[in-house]
């Protein structure tokens, strides 16, 4: 029994003349929450559909919990909870009837059926709408119904195709919290276009481009990017006197971890602003020590985390010469 929840080996998928996947390979161990990124048409949904057992691969292997989806699709589907893109649901059904139907089709045993449904309803916060037709629900509630449907049979693997698309900011946060909670006990693979979402939920990022894997790395490492991270600092003298910018810059350069110091924006004349670049080690603790020693007041310390977007843009850019560079 292999420990990986997902194993994909040189997977290809052809729809007529178009090649959606061109030899994709990756592995996901049990318990990991993986973000699946890529531009539209890169092959994210196709990969997820293959894993969920909706479409069959043209060649290559896709194993879910050690079961080949092409050899025993029904057994593989039992292990998976799937939220398809656009979350299609039976509009004319009541929420509770729909969940009962899913439980029956999934073969949830009769003695645990009502407990499982109750759990799913509670976790997804559906108590208030249980007797409503799905067609009448708001988009946020619909998404919760889709999630409830996916977790009803307590699957080992959750495949969520754009779980937060089309939701308002509050709904996004709710769904994110729910997914984070589910990620504590299950393997989750989710696709999204919202990069901060990956940082909020996933420990690992896979970027797919033109049907092949372009990047596979931990979220933390990717967030740092090639140039490392950056910390913006605004500081002033503790005694109210003005500071010598050159001297402060020298002192900052001496802070452990800091690779480079650039001048940044200050707040008014009594303060100085800097941008500290670092490679690996976060210099904020050392910065505090330095501030105490030099009697500065730190007005602002902010670690910038924008470089996942930079990495994404770089990796997915059409003219990227070496897409594996960021890995």
């Amino acid at each position: 029994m292999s420990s990986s929840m997902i194993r994909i080996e040189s997977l290809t998928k052809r729809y007529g003349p178009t090649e959606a996947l061109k030899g994709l390979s990756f592995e996901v161990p049990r318990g990991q929450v993986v973000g699946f990124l890529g531009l539209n048409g890169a092959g994210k949904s196709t990969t997820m559909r293959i894993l969920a057992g909706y479409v069959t691969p043209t060649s290559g292997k896709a194993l879910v919990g050690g079961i080949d989806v092409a050899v025993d699709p029904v057994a593989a589907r039992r292990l998976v909870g799937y939220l398809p893109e656009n979350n299609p649901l039976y509009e004319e059904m009541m929420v509770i009837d729909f969940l009962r139907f899913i439980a029956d089709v999934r073969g949830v045993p009769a003695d645990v059926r009502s407990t499982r449904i109750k759990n799913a309803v509670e976790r997804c916060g559906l108590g208030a709408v249980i007797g409503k037709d799905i067609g009448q629900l708001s988009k946020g509630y619909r998404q919760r119904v889709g999630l409830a449907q996916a977790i009803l049979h307590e699957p080992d693997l959750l495949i969520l195709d754009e779980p937060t698309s089309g939701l308002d900011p509050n709904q996004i946060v709710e769904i994110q919290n729910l997914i984070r909670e589910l990620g504590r006990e299950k393997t989750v693979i989710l696709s999204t276009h919202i990069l901060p979402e990956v940082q909020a939920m996933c420990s690992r990022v896979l970027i797919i481009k033109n049907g092949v894997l372009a990047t596979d790395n931990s979220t933390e490492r990717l967030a740092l990017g090639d140039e490392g991270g950056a910390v913006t600092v605004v500081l002033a003298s503790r005694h109210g006197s003005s500071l010598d910018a050159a001297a402060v810059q020298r002192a900052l350069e001496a802070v452990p971890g800091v690779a480079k110091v650039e001048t940044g924006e200050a707040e008014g004349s009594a303060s100085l602003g800097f941008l500290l670049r670092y490679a690996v080690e976060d210099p904020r603790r050392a910065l505090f020590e330095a501030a105490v020693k030099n009697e500065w007041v730190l007005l602002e310390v902010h670690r910038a985390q924008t470089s996942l977007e930079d990495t994404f843009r770089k990796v997915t850019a059409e003219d990227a010469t070496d897409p594996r560079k960021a890995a």
Partner: protein
Amino acid sequence: MNSTLAVARREFKTFFASPIAYIVLGGFLLVSGWLYFSTLLLAGQASLRNFFGFAPVLFVVLVPAITMRSIAEERKSGTLELLLTMPLEDWQVVLGKFLASVGMVGVGLMWTLPYAFTVAGLTATGSVFDWGPVIAGYLGLLFLASSFVALGLWASALSKNQIVGFIVGLIVCFAFYFVDKFAALLPASLGQVLEYLSVDYHFENIARGVLDTRDLLFYGSLTAAGLLFTTRTLSASRQ
């Protein structure tokens, strides 16, 4: 099996959630009732012969109207993706939908039972109403409906357009009804082949009260073929 029945139950309930079911069933009962009672007194016979005479041609329209949305609608709304990622074999999905549609035809037929009771009440004093042909006729109609449902499901699986599902289903069912209608004009050997292919010919045999294995085999084969084609068409959407 439970999963198949779950699909069938959901499908059956869905019929009644849309007005189409009521319109289709209402239309069927209206036309069949009118045809039935307008000829009953003319014939002056206490039997359901005339009803069983025109019922097959009504089924040519009724059954595709019932099956047209079955798979097409799931394709259109995207729920097919949800259904096809459930731990079910494709044939189980098809079988579930088949059972629901046959059940729906059964509901329609149930509402025609009053015809049988009225006619039984009209039987001349002293004679006994013969229930044999009535039971055989209803049984035959269910067999005929099963084969039409299987063909109609295949038509519905072809595209995401219900209208296409209806028209293709209508054409296919009509072909199997009409195929022997000019058999008398053709050489005997060819005529026999066409007769064998006709759902109407086999239905007449059963409605006469003769349950022959040849007729049952015909309906069984046609139904199985329809379900097989439907399953293959459905599986093709995974490609």
